[in-house]
């Protein structure tokens, strides 16, 4: 009986067949080591820090939890008393809004250039990926300390001179942008790599077909390359936001670190602050996701277009 029912409706999700159980088992086996690591060092630690953020903890011979008058006290004081926090957060948001498109556009352009048929391609690829290798803690400290990370003085001053008329809150992030432009570009190594991987999967027949139909390079970029690259753009955007948000040179991370180990404020306070920050980053990621996600109808359109193009090419 059971097998008969199963046959009739093989995609019934609620039924637990033997095969399904076996498949699940393999899934669990493969995910288990990772799950253990993450549960102990991330999930458990995060739950703990959430608990800390709702109390006032003191470290001396173990931890003592002091209950707060109001469990939300730490969160309230982050907003009420910490003047630096909203300002730094706003600056971070603005900086991100400026940097993200630059990184994505830059890495897409570089990936397109690197994907074209030119000589010494591998040398260029190495140069653009090299920063990922080198841009580690001590090296970065050196670079920012020496001011090498900025655009050469002359061009920077001319550019900023033009922008001088703008209001402070626009001018400031832009000038920050210029003073760390190299660092921003240095952050694009992984993104370039991901885009390259995506570009190499675009079948060249598509471009040929488009060309026969009279599409210019510009048109085929917008109509072929960009739609196919959309999932990659989403992946890259998320990756970029995450690296920018959790990188060591981020001012908010620095602030949280300072606050956490300051004698007057303490770890609970820092924990509350990091949860607020995480929530903000999550919202930013959600916005990025909603803006860049692949709409299902658009995908259908693209897929029906493809055979169409191929057919015409054969006709020709």
């Amino acid at each position: 009986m059971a097998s008969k029912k199963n046959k009739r409706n093989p995609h019934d999700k609620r039924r637990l067949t033997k095969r399904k159980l076996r498949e699940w088992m393999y899934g669990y086996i493969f995910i288990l080591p990772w799950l253990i690591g993450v549960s102990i060092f991330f999930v458990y630690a995060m739950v703990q820090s959430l608990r800390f953020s709702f109390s006032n903890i003191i470290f001396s011979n173990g931890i003592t939890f002091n209950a707060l008058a109001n469990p939300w006290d730490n969160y309230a004081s982050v907003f009420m008393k910490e003047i630096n926090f909203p300002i730094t957060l706003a600056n971070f948001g603005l900086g991100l809004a400026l940097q993200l498109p630059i990184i994505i556009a830059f890495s897409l352009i570089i990936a397109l250039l690197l994907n074209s048929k030119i000589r010494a391609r591998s040398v260029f690829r190495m140069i653009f990926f090299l920063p990922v290798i080198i841009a580690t803690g001590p090296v970065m400290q050196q670079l920012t300390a020496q001011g090498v990370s900025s655009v050469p003085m002359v061009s920077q001053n001319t550019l900023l001179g033009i922008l001088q008329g703008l209001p402070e809150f626009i001018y400031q992030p832009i000038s920050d942008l210029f003073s760390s432009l190299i660092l921003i570009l240095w952050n694009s190594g992984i993104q370039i790599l991901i885009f390259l991987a995506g570009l190499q999967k675009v079948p060249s027949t598509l471009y040929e077909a488009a060309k026969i139909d009279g599409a210019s390079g510009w048109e085929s970029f917008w109509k072929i390359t960009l739609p196919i690259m959309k999932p990659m753009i989403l992946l890259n955007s998320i990756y970029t936001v995450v690296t920018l948000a959790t990188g060591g040179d981020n001012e908010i991370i620095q602030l949280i670190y300072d606050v956490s180990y300051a004698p007057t404020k303490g770890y609970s306070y820092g924990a509350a602050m990091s949860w607020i920050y995480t929530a903000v980053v999550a919202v930013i990621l959600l916005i990025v996701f909603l803006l860049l996600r692949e709409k299902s109808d658009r995908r259908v359109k693209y897929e029906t277009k493809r055979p169409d193009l191929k057919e015409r090419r054969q006709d020709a």
Partner: protein
Amino acid sequence: MAIGGTKVNPKKFHKNQIPFYLYLIPVAVFMGAPIVYIINHAFKPMDELFAFPPKFFVSNPSLINFRNLFQTAAGSSIPISRYIFNSFIVTVAVVLLSIIISTMAGFALSKMKFKLKNTIFEVNNLALMFVATAVTIPRYLTINAVGILDTYWAHILPLIAMPVCLFLIKQFMDQVPDSLLEAAQLEGAGAFRIYWKVILPLTKPAIATGAILAFQSVWTNVETSNLFTSSEGIRTLGFYMNTLSGVGTVQGQGMAAAAAMIMFVPNLLLFVVMQSSVMNTMAYSGMK
């Protein structure tokens, strides 16, 4: 139409290449400059280090910064080779383990069906965003409770589950066509065989990228040495270099420059070794 067709695939690219170079070369120089600077900076004698305006190239290269660095190191009770050895063990262990763990998890999340799959991936995304500072003390407490404080495990275990690594690898595995796995399954390959013979070779670029990310996160990590160990003999080179160059002396500046260079040489070596697999993206590894 036929005439248009011949234009599509020109055999020679001589002229077309020029604009590409016009864009690529300046940007490449622009991005490569700081690397040259770091190398030059490490070899600058004292007077050039503090010259204003700072000079880009060194004019009288000297090894004085390195000498200072090693002299200070020789003065301490633990030889520098010990730190190097510690760093080596910890780095190799973290890179290997984190790659095995993330590829296995990525395979499961990307290609297998099981309950709670999406929840697990969401947890990973949350961990991805979370501020590491906020979990250091809970991590310390965990490590203390497990009883691995002041051992190599304290360096290794907190770092092996890397959310960024899993995220990247999983996204790459999503693009391995399912039909390939089905074919392997029809041939009678089990889950482990598919993982080893199909998935791993096909996602080599992602794995190499993940390995480099893992390497970086552990090689320059000072936090585990700082917080999870108390005896000097178990701490890593990154931590040691940090303490040496952190001394706020005039010599410290030069030593910091030398230390920065020493720390990035292994990165460079690793990249040279891995570069073919990093750069040869999907198209060359049998995927459509």
